[in-house]
């Protein structure tokens, strides 16, 4: 039997915010739901959100979950975490936040928290008019055929949760938990991620010493964009700019590099990398991936990043 925290058991035995949210005719209220998983996979979550378009915030959240103890507790926790937040704030919530709220989850059950994060994204994308079919995780090379998990999703789980073993990847996204024929490929992805991280770190250290003349960083003055419908071009660019300023640059600067937004052409985001970040081919690739993942998650799943 799993060793669950008291919080997990409490939210499993007495779940908060269970059920659906009925469509509402109230003014300034939109109701939407996002869905992940399936009965075939053994867990599924339908997350219902009641949104106030004028403030772009979550008025109420409810869940319907098919799954184990920790899946139900994770869903309940998620609804508690996101109530009252703006959609942009909600998009920043990671699976680790859900696990932390629960006082931790057994590592073999971390995929339950990942499911929560994904359902949240699915709901918000849906509300923003972004086709769910275009969700980043459905794209990219299929690595695990048993669970339909793509390379993109595995890379993201590795990066966001700092995973270093195949077993961890299986625990977080299920890939590798079936026939096992994808295990070697998952191992390659982990190695790749580790090597890239190492390259960036080394390059950053080397260049940081010479790089004391970077232009000062201007904090973002752009307000967050809110939209109940698909993003306009202007909103999209503002949002990209905001994420780069607030989410990406601080990390790069800390490592002795920097980035600026050069142009946005449709879904192509052109950026310029400086310092450590621009110094070698491998680190450029890594950064492109890192920035792309952030922008895809926080702005639009169809965005691609190119370094010029």
């Amino acid at each position, binding site marked *: *039997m*799993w060793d669950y925290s008291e919080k997990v*058991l409490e939210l*499993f*035995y007495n*779940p908060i915010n*269970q*059920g659906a949210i009925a469509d509402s005719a109230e003014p300034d209220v939109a109701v939407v739901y996002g*869905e992940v998983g*399936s*009965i*075939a*996979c*053994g*867990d*599924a*979550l*339908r997350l219902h959100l009641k949104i106030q378009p004028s403030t772009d915030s979550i008025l109420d959240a409810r*869940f*319907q*979950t*098919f*799954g*184990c*103890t920790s*899946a*139900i507790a994770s869903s309940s926790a998620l609804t508690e975490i996101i109530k009252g937040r703006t959609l942009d704030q909600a998009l920043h919530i990671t699976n680790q936040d859900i696990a932390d709220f629960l006082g931790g989850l057994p590592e*073999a*059950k971390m995929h339950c928290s990942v499911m929560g994060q994904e359902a949240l994204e699915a709901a918000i994308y849906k509300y923003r008019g972004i086709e769910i079919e275009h969700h980043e995780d459905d794209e990219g090379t299929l690595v695990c055929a*048993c*669970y339909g998990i793509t390379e993109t999703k595995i890379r993201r789980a590795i990066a966001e949760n700092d995973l270093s073993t195949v077993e961890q990847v*299986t625990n977080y996204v*299920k890939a590798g*938990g*079936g026939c096992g024929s994808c295990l070697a490929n998952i191992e390659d992805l982990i190695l790749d991620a580790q090597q890239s991280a190492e390259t960036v770190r080394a390059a950053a250290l080397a260049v940081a010493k010479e790089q004391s003349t970077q232009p000062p960083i201007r904090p973002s003055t752009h307000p967050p964009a809110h939209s109940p419908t698909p993003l306009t071009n202007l909103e999209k660019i503002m949002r990209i700019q905001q994420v780069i300023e607030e989410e990406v640059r601080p990390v790069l600067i800390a490592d002795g590099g920097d980035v600026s937004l050069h142009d946005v052409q449709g879904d192509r985001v052109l950026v310029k990398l400086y310092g450590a970040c621009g110094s070698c081919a491998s680190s450029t690739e890594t950064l492109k991936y890192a920035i792309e993942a952030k922008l895809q998650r926080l702005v639009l799943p169809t965005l691609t990043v190119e370094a010029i």
Partner: protein
Amino acid sequence: MVTYLDNNATTRTDPEVLAAMLPYLSELYGNPSSMHSFGGQVGAVIETAREQVATLLGAEPTEIIFNSCGSEGNNTAIHAALAAQPEKRHIVTTAVEHAAILAVCKHLEKRGYTVTYLSVDERGELDLMELEATMTGGTALVTTMYANNETGVIFPVEQIGEIAKAYGATFHVDAVQAVGKVPINLATSTIDLLTLSGHKLHAPKGIGVLYVRKGFRFRPFLLGGHQERGRRAGTHNVPAIVALGKAAELAQTHLAHTKREAELRDLLEYGILATIPDTVVNGGGAPRLPNTTNIGFKYIEGEAILFMLNREGICASSGSACTSGSLDPSHVLTAMGLPYTILHGSIRFSLSRYTTEAEIRQVLTVMPEIVERLRALSPFNNDQAEWLQERDVALAT
């Protein structure tokens, strides 16, 4: 108080069994392999235990090899069968065996053996025509379970054995779940090798038996000392052997009363089917052990059910992936071709001679509410049955 309905996982050590073994954990600690009389007196009790086990199986004492557990018995049996006919490279087993068979077969496949995994139908039953069709003169071994641990479905072992014999193959039966629950008479059987495990019949864990038919060219798996007439090295686990002997003796008496267990099992089964919609008995149409039922609760997940039961002090087991640490649902239920709606929400209740009617009634009292609560949380329900099936199919292909 705990309502223990997980007896296919392990059983309570019978108090009489415990009493029988205790002296050998304290003052009678001699090693039966020693030359002195202090050890020698212990040797005699091993032989008594051997006779007790042999009697339960309708075997001869010399056909009984004590070992550590069912897994050891299964591993040894397979290796012994292959060693007996080294020129043959084909093994036949079923898709629903215990891991201690399947893992060995997978391992042997990498070593150049061909393994046929016989399928089962939705009732969990084998197709003997399929068995017949796969047999050749090159088949070294047919290994099947006597009864399935998850569903309790009993295989027609004697018919399987006859087919195996017709092709000159060794016939091994993993009878871990069957011994003590159904009568077995090896004297008139086609079985060459049979595995049993003590802790499934009210002996403690860590003791098992491999039955080896007299005249079978047995090659030992574990080499070393001369214990068990050189067929299984390793210091005798005297207290556990004594315990197993006593447990076998008690099981023999109990066999006459398993009808009561079957009645309680049926009470549980009918009670659940009658009060909770969308439930099915997995393997219900086949001959089954008297103590086992496996019930699928559609649209909800097994681990969640188990935790709810656990809060009520009821111990059962689930074939759901989430309980096991693996991510795949039960290979047995999967092999039976059950739909996903049932696969993840199946619970096994396994009774023993200690199970009372009050315990069964307790389960019947709490179960409807548990299922209702979890179904209220679930995004799936009967209204979506059609949609679910479509999705099941899409995902399965």
